[in-house]
């Protein structure tokens, strides 16, 4: 609880300390962290790897841009539209996609994102290939724009992590993890596998929709090539894989590595964005081979640190209650 108050205070105060460039970077980090947590909810807890999650980011962002333009209100007030639209799309698309498993689900998601991206580029109503600027950007108070974006991103991140922690310690989370670990065993004790997966999928889409809307709102512009870029999924996946899949702390560590490496490679080392992705990819591949569960679980086991651990101790086996036998008493 105390640490939560400290975090809220840090996020509230940061815009008064940091300069504008740093604030933008921090906002980007926080939004990508939220997206990675959402991808992790699906991949790490529900066992569904999506390679088409950019479609939810794009749906959220386009929903925000278009509704804000139609209603002519400040984009912040129509933010709730973004997760709702993304969640609705996820709920519909889940029906055909949930018939597929493993890699089939992953690639079918990707194909779905490609189809929606192609239609978006064709549709002049949403700006076609050239995209649309934020029509209501004149209603924004630009003195407070960067700090507001940062507060929204920070608030979203904290709420996301707190909600995920709460969820994973609830019976729903337990059901979800049991499905991931062994779906047959989970079904046999009465866990509704499809239902759990469905909820995780819709929540994950909603979170990505909201984070995507905030991300493009910060740019004041959206174009299909950026919104439907498969690199969104690449970033989310690398952050989760490197940090630690199926843990809440993993993506946090992953985001630090992701941005640390980016600032290092494209800054002081003067390398291009392509080489940065190569470097990140190599780290991800090495982590997958050396420590398949990611860096955080490996560190945690070595150091014995527990931060946002949702691990439950197994009930003590009944045998332990039996008093030691004579021979044990003698040797013990």
């Amino acid at each position: 609880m105390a640490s939560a108050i400290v975090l809220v205070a840090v996020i509230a105060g940061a815009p008064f300390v940091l300069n504008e460039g740093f604030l933008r970077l921090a906002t980007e980090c926080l939004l990508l962290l939220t997206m990675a947590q959402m991808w992790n909810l699906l991949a790490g807890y529900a066992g569904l790897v999506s390679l088409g999650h950019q479609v939810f980011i794009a749906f959220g962002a386009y929903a925000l841009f278009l509704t804000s333009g139609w209603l002519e209100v400040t984009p912040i007030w129509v933010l709730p539209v973004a997760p709702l639209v993304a969640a609705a799309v996820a709920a519909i698309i889940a029906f055909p996609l949930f018939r597929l498993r493993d890699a089939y689900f992953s690639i079918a998601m990707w194909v779905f994102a490609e189809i929606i991206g192609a239609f978006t580029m064709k549709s002049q109503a949403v700006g076609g290939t050239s995209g649309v600027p934020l029509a209501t950007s004149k209603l924004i108070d630009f003195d407070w724009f960067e700090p507001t974006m940062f507060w929204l991103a920070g608030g979203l991140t904290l709420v996301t992590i707190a909600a995920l922690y709460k969820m994973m310690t609830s019976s729903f989370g337990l059901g979800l993890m049991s499905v991931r670990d062994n779906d047959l065993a989970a079904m046999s004790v009465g866990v509704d596998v499809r239902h759990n997966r469905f909820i995780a999928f819709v929540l994950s889409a909603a979170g990505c929709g909201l984070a995507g809307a905030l991300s493009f709102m910060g740019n004041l512009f959206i174009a299909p090539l950026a919104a439907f870029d498969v690199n969104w999924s690449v970033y989310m996946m690398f952050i989760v894989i490197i940090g630690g899949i199926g843990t809440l702390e993993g993506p946090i560590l992953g985001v630090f590595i992701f941005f640390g490496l980016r600032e290092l490679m494209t800054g002081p080392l003067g390398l291009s964005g392509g080489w940065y992705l190569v470097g990140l990819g190599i780290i991800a591949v090495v982590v997958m081979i050396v420590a398949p569960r990611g860096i955080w679980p490996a560190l945690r086991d070595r150091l014995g640190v527990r931060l946002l651990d949702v691990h439950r101790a197994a009930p003590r086996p009944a045998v332990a209650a039996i008093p030691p036998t004579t021979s044990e008493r003698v040797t013990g």
Partner: protein
Amino acid sequence: MIWVETLINGALLGGLYGLLGIGLALVFGVMRVVNIAHGEFMVLSAFCAVLLSNLFPQVSPLLMLIPVIALSFAVGWLYQALIVNRVVTSPDPLSPLLLTFGVSVILRNVMVEIFGADVRSLQVGELSRASLEVAGLNIGIMPLLTLVLAALLFMALQLVLRHTEFGRIVRATADRRDIVRLSGVKPDRVYNYVMGLSLALGAIGGVLLAVRSSFTPFSGAERLLIAFEVVVLGGLGSFWGALLGGIALGMAQLIGLKIDPNAGLLYAHLLFFIMLLIRPSGLVSSRV
């Protein structure tokens, strides 16, 4: 008449698409791994062919297929031995998927940095423009040759897998990886050859597709998606199914392009998605 021609050309393109899919199907069939980097390896082989034909301009680019195929086999062998074999037996079915996806991102960006993001194509001179007149229909020689080559390769692969010692070992490894060890077969070794074969087949598809249309380092993703759709539409385990799936997608794409000239792969993707809705029983992956 123009529609008949479109359908025929779609079928010819489908032969090429079948070739893209078969390498992916082979690896999936034997080791239950969807190699997400398959498309990037195809683009890489196309870049190799372009480099070689720049080095030896007097040799026909189609002859470059031979060294490129050999190189792709070696690359596939090493890729499997050094990387994929480490996760292929992982209890988590997601590990190979994530790993090969990581490799595809690395390959794509290395190609962008080395070859640049420009649009390339492989020129084969007269052959690419030559065409046959049959009953008033205009049919390209090159696409026709491609379809014939695809059919021959499918037949050869079928024969090798059905009737040779190597084929028997591969099928046995696909069925029971643990049991074949009792007969002295090393599953990892078999996988190395299978991945080599898969990338060699992919190289043929990749080079021929580079002759037909231009490519960039970013083309790997769409090649993977086509290959994947071919495999799913055709049904698993059936090579002829893959050819039929390829033909269906090729037709869908060319009919789509007739209706809407800048549709790209949209209609092929749509056909795949509609099939997913109406015929899911044939699409669900069999789990091992």
